[in-house]
């Protein structure tokens, strides 16, 4: 029995006990449902264990050499390749992915750019404090979930931050207040106790609540008697008291707050509120935690920042990074790409049809370890080892803390890691062609 870090989600729990002889995993103790699924992927019935290429409209198993030759042909015939995904791979693989994009004059971005990366960049530019899991465990007294449902996306997050007993405060759950702002009564509401504050907000009315709170923080005017955004006046008073009285509060933001609106920027307004509260706070502060889903969603930003000083939307011409106004969405929408290399993600499922249908039109190379909607339309599919189980590497936890993942067993068919495969493609392109 040995302790390993789980790569089932972005929480990267480091307390999973695994029994293994190095060939098979016989027992996994302490993993949540998502973690268990991650370990079950090893023997999943829809796991891909051989390279595939499309022949006469059908995906057929082929040798590695044939698949690599086909992939190199696609890359060499492409003048504006798009590289996307990279949030389910190690930082080392992300780094090679960026080098490959540079070598082939591509545009590269990760899933973070359509998810938590948006808040990360805004928080960075405003100078907002991001906090860590350890800080919340040890010192937190107020946890606000805004448009976030960790019970179903990062299942052990609430166990860790809400039910834990702090090292620097002698109390745990009994002094931690949970506030949830959401239009849907999600599974996360089930952990709420009597001192907590459930706020069912009317859909699309978050902005009204934020602006009222900003007003109250600055002028202490009275809260409208009819409440705001469907939330009762007394609940709003309690919310204000918590926000301005917490010693160590954290707002955990989910996908619910990063939706675009033509009339305002919700994330920006929410972060401005946070700044205002912290200015008014006399004894404490409110920080931010971003809740991404994929296990290394935070990693790409760090790798790209350390290599090229930007956190996403990297575009290369003549092997040099160039300034671009383009984003992943604009690239695809304008069809300003002629092939794609998709790594560890499923854009055909998770992007709107207007974009996924455009990706499907162009030659597509997929690197992934199991069937997805994207594998159905790919021209070349490369299977790889499962990071955190069959290969190691670095990943950034959702609170931006780097965590080392370790190899537990060998992959089937000696599958390469994502990093090894990307390195192989990079090496061949660098030499000018296939072996």
């Amino acid at each position, binding site marked *: 029995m040995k302790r390993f870090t789980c790569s089932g989600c972005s929480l990267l729990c480091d307390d999973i006990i695994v029994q293994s002889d190095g060939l098979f995993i016989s027992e996994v103790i302490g993993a949540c449902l998502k973690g268990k699924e991650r370990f079950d992927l090893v023997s999943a*019935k829809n796991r891909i264990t051989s390279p595939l290429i499309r022949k006469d409209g059908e995906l057929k198993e082929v040798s590695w050499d044939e698949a690599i030759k086909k992939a190199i042909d696609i890359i060499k015939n492409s003048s504006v390749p798009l590289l996307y995904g990279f949030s389910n791979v190690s930082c080392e693989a992300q780094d090679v992915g960026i080098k490959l994009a540079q070598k082939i004059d591509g545009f590269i971005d990760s899933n973070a750019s359509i998810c938590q990366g948006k808040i990360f960049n805004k928080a960075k530019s405003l100078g907002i404090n991001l906090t860590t899991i350890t800080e919340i465990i040890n010192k937190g007294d107020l946890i606000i979930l805004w448009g976030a449902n960790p019970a179903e996306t990062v299942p052990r997050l609430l166990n860790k931050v809400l039910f834990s007993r702090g090292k620097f405060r002698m109390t745990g759950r009994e002094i931690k207040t949970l506030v949830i702002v959401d239009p849907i009564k999600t599974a996360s509401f089930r952990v709420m106790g009597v001192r907590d504050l459930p706020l069912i907000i009317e859909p699309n009315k978050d902005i009204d609540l934020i602006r009222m709170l900003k007003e109250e923080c600055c002028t202490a005017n009275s809260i409208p008697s009819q409440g705001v955004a469907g939330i009762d006046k007394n609940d709003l008073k309690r919310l204000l008291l918590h926000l301005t009285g917490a010693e160590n509060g954290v707002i955990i933001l989910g996908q619910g707050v990063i939706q675009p609106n033509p009339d305002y920027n919700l994330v920006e307004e929410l972060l401005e509120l946070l700044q205002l509260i912290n200015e008014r706070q006399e004894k404490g502060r409110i920080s931010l935690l971003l809740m991404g889903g994929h296990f290394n969603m935070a990693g790409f930003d760090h790798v790209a920042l350390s290599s090229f000083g930007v956190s996403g939307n990297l575009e290369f011409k003549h092997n040099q990074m160039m300034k671009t106004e383009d984003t992943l969405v604009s690239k695809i929408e304008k069809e300003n790409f002629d092939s794609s290399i998709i790594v560890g993600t499923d854009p055909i499922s998770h*992007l*709107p049809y207007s974009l996924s249908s455009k990706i499907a039109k162009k030659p597509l190379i997929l690197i992934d370890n199991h069937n997805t909607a994207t594998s159905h339309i790919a021209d070349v599919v490369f299977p790889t080892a499962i990071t955190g189980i069959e290969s190691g590497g670095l990943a950034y936890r959702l609170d931006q803390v780097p965590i080392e993942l370790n190899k537990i067993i060998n992959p089937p068919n000696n599958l390469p890691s994502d990093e090894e495969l990307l390195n192989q493609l990079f090496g061949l392109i660098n030499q000018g062609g296939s072996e």
Partner: protein
Amino acid sequence: MEFLLNSIRKIDNDQVKEHAFGTEQTLEERLAICFINPKDFEKLKLVSSQQLKISNKDKNVIVNVEKDDNIPEGMVVMPVSIWSNQLSVVQNNELLYKNIVVNVEATHDSITKFKEIMQETMVK
């Protein structure tokens, strides 16, 4: 009837899990589905043998429907999947997955099959 469509991640309706471990049948059972408030179920005069046709101005999907008290009236919730993303949209160069205005109606037609969606998507 006009509704707001929200796509959310649900642990029991997870596309990664269904693609990795399931069959096309379980994929459709778990993901070609939506949830609405029981009062809306009545307003739409739905019976259990019917499905819901959800449309925006460009696309539509037919999915199974279940009652859920946790969903506010006027909202239809779908798990994030290729079905919900037939209806999600690009707005000002950003992706809109929440609060999308859709039209919803009861139907006896069968659900939109995974193969149908893939065939439409795959046209190269």
